[in-house]
């Protein structure tokens, strides 16, 4: 494809089709749904971070007149350890069942133990007090060091480390080990003139979506049971519920509500299977909503991590070797994003000798969930901090240092394949030209810079495009819209059909209306669902040509389609899309296009961020005074949404770098489970996030799309922490750079 391709609608800033409903409060979110006869479900949660359940007696609760059903782990049909695809990754069905309702052991403070459905929300909450539980409290394992200690209490007595050269013979808190290598790092480091080697740490953080988890479930044994849920992937909610409760997929219908943020955290299930059990037992629809505190304590945060990084370079700036050991917390059950961390950590750089090993470590915290580019922010934070320190030691500008070693087309990645066309060099050059980088650093400020990489994925999407007799239509997609994808779908279909986007209404359909669609995540929707939309629109164009040909009594080869009009190449006739639709009843019935893809060729994305931070040397308080996000979008379908994704990723990353962290007491209880004490950035905390869209088209997508949702959260950790480091003239190795931490670093400087 040509970079100079001209588009009619792609690249415009159209009005978002979902905007009016959202700003007027008309959009229906997870908690907005109700059904006749509906009752309320509440969950009893563990007061301990690690304990055996010696006794669980729900009889008093069951006997209460307001209580209509009680659920415990024993209500799950017998499930065995088995990997299955659900949400964004492979999951173990037994782990999922034990996470949804604990079995014999609680593994984190807030772990669900039992659930009650009662006639009112208050009655359900009160009845939780009637459940009797006896615990044998065990020492909590709250850190990587504690989990790895020789005498560490085991979370799972039967867990053997996978991925070792020799099979493990004793159980451990290390679920798995992974290793990747390229070249020979020992000989590489032998050539190095300068080496930087440090250990970096990142905390447990939450995705911080504003809308808590919520669901309404109505069990039905004669028709598909209904699940209404706030989720990034209703087809995978269906898969999880079906698997856990041994129901056929056709017995479960899931409707995705409007979603108030997910960022990866709504790619798994917590409430839905429990509500299904309660609904089945009570014979009534059941509604469940997590409180904010429950969201923090019991829904998946992002992994805390410890990364040991070593990078060696020649005096010329050529990097000769990079090496890392990564430890990622998985929470209570195996499955941290350690793997993507290993795969991404050094991918921005074309270096001959690389070695990375990673460990997936269980601890007594809530099971981690995906969070925007899972694993990459933690790992690449470590690499980027070391890169900046190395550039300073070599006395080379950090952009020049990166350009000298930048990954480009043909670079062999540590995870295997060579990169196709990518835009890191273009991002670095745009960063250097930016007004931000050209400006002087302010008094009392530091400046930081970091690059970031994320794969982006493709996957399965299905779309139907129905046209009405007046030439308007509906795009029926199965990807919950978490970032403005409906507008992008509208624009891509309009581009193919050559009509105005607002003639097409994009809707997110339920699991009965379309074939399977993968979860919205992995920056896949505009790429993969977009490909399905394009395929469906092209299907419509072919039908329009055939219908017109039949009306003109010519062959389909004798007609052409351009800008919403079919042209008769054998004569002077022409018909608009609307005219053909109006006569569709005479030519074979109404017109509907279909697109079913398993999209390949997702385009990797690079970003470069610049950050200026002012540090109060007396208090350690930090203020971001200027921030610029530069990223390769491939092709920006709707530039405003692309900029919004860049800004959103940057702001979440700034929060991660500056203030966000789970604070636990010595009993393993989170002490800041609310937005007053868990400090995410507010609009008033930050300057306008400046954005620069770089467009190096992905040749595998008809319009060049790469996907933009995740890469933007990768660089901020390094960019912000480097700026703080620059401001206080001391290497930062641990985030968040909250005032107490920064002040501690300042006071220890001497």
């Amino acid at each position, binding site marked *: 494809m040509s970079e100079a391709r001209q588009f009619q609608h792609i690249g415009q800033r159209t009005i978002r089709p979902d905007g009016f409903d959202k700003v007027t409060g008309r959009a229906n979110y997870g908690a907005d749904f109700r059904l006749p006869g509906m009752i309320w479900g509440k969950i009893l949660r563990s007061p301990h971070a690690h304990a055996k359940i010696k006794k669980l007696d729900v009889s008093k609760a069951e006997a209460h007149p307001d209580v209509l059903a009680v659920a415990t782990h024993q209500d799950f049909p017998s499930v065995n350890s088995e990997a299955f695809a659900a949400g*964004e990754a492979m999951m173990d069905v037994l782990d999922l069942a034990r996470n949804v309702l604990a079995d014999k052991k609680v593994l984190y403070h807030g772990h669900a133990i039992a659930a009650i459905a009662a006639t009112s929300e208050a009655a359900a909450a009160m009845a939780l007090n009637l459940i009797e539980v006896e615990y044998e409290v065990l020492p909590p394992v709250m850190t990587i060091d504690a989990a790895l200690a020789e005498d560490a209490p085991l979370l799972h007595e039967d867990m053997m480390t996978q991925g070792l050269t020799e099979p493990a013979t004793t159980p451990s808190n290390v679920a798995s080990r992974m290793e*990747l290598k390229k070249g020979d790092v020992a000989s590489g480091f032998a050539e190095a003139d300068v080496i930087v080697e440090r250990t970096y740490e990142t905390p447990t953080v939450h995705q911080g979506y504003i809308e808590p988890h919520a669901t309404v479930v109505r069990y039905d044994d004669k028709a598909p049971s209904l699940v209404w849920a706030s989720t990034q992937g209703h087809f995978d909610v269906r898969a999880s519920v079906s698997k856990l409760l041994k129901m056929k997929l056709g017995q479960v219908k899931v409707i995705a509500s409007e979603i108030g943020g997910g960022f990866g955290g709504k790619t798994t299930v917590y409430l839905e299977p429990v509500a299904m059990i309660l609904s089945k037992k009570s014979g009534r629809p059941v509604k469940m909503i997590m409180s904010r505190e429950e969201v923090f304590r019991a829904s998946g945060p992002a992994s805390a991590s410890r990364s040991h990084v070593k990078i060696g370079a020649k005096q010329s700036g050529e990097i000769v070797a990079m090496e890392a050991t990564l430890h990622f917390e998985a929470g209570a059950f195996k499955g941290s994003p350690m793997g993507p961390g290993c795969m991404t950590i050094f991918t921005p750089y074309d270096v001959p000798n690389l070695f990375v090993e990673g460990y997936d470590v269980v601890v007594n915290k809530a099971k981690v969930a995906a969070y925007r*580019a899972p694993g990459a922010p933690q790992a690449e934070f470590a690499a980027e901090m070391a890169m900046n320190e190395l550039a300073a030691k070599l006395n080379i500008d950090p952009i020049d240092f990166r350009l000298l070693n930048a990954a480009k087309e043909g670079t062999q990645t540590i*995870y295997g*394949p060579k990169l196709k066309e990518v835009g890191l060099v273009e991002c670095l050059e745009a960063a250097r030209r930016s007004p931000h980088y050209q400006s002087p650093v302010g008094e009392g400020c530091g400046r930081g810079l970091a690059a970031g990489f994320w794969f982006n994925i493709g996957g399965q999407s299905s779309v139907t495009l129905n046209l009405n007799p007046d030439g308007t239509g509906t795009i029926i997609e199965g990807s919950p819209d978490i970032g403005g994808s409906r507008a992008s779908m509208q624009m891509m279909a309009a581009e193919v059909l050559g009509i105005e986007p607002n003639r097409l209404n994009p809707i997110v359909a339920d699991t009965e209306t379309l074939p399977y669609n993968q979860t919205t995540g992995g920056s896949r929707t505009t790429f993969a669902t977009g490909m399905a939309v394009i395929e469906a629109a092209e299907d419509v164009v072919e039908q329009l040509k055939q219908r017109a040909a039949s009306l003109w009594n010519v062959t389909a080869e004798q007609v052409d389609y351009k800008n919403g009009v079919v042209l008769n190449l054998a004569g002077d006739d022409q018909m608009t899309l609307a005219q053909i639709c109006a006569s569709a009843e005479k030519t074979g019935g109404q017109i509907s296009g279909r697109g079913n893809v*398993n999209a*390949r060729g997702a385009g990797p994305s690079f970003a470069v961020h610049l950050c200026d931070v002012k540090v109060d040397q007396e208090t350690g308080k930090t203020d971001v005074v200027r921030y610029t996000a530069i990223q390769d979008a491939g092709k920006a379908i709707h530039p405003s949404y692309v900029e919004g994704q860049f800004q959103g990723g940057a702001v979440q990353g700034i929060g991660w770098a500056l203030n966000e962290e789970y604070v636990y007491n010595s009993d393993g209880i989170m002490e800041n489970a609310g937005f007053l004490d868990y400090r995410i950035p507010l609009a008033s905390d930050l300057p306008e996030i400046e954005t620069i869209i770089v467009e190096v088209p992905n040749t595998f997508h008809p319009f060049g799309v790469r996907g933009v949702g995740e890469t933007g959260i990768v660089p901020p950790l390094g960019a912000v922490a480097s700026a703080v480091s620059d401001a206080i003239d001391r290497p930062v190795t641990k985030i968040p750079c909250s005032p107490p931490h920064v002040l501690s670093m300042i006071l220890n400087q001497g």
Partner: protein
Amino acid sequence: MAVVRFSSHLETRTGVLETEVKAMSYRDLIQELLEKFPSLRGSDLEDLALALDGELIQEPLLVTFSSTAELHFVPKLAAG
């Protein structure tokens, strides 16, 4: 012949980081590799995605390729 490059994890089963194959389809590739490296199990490969000349393919069952192709087995990717 097409070239297959293995990760260091798969190297523990193949003993080599790289091999050439006659296969020109994914199905034939799996069969040829399992015959060539008896320590490899089908699940070692079939649970992985395939990168064909740099293009990541999550479900490669029907993939065909040329004799000059460069192939890698890559963990299936998830995301947020």
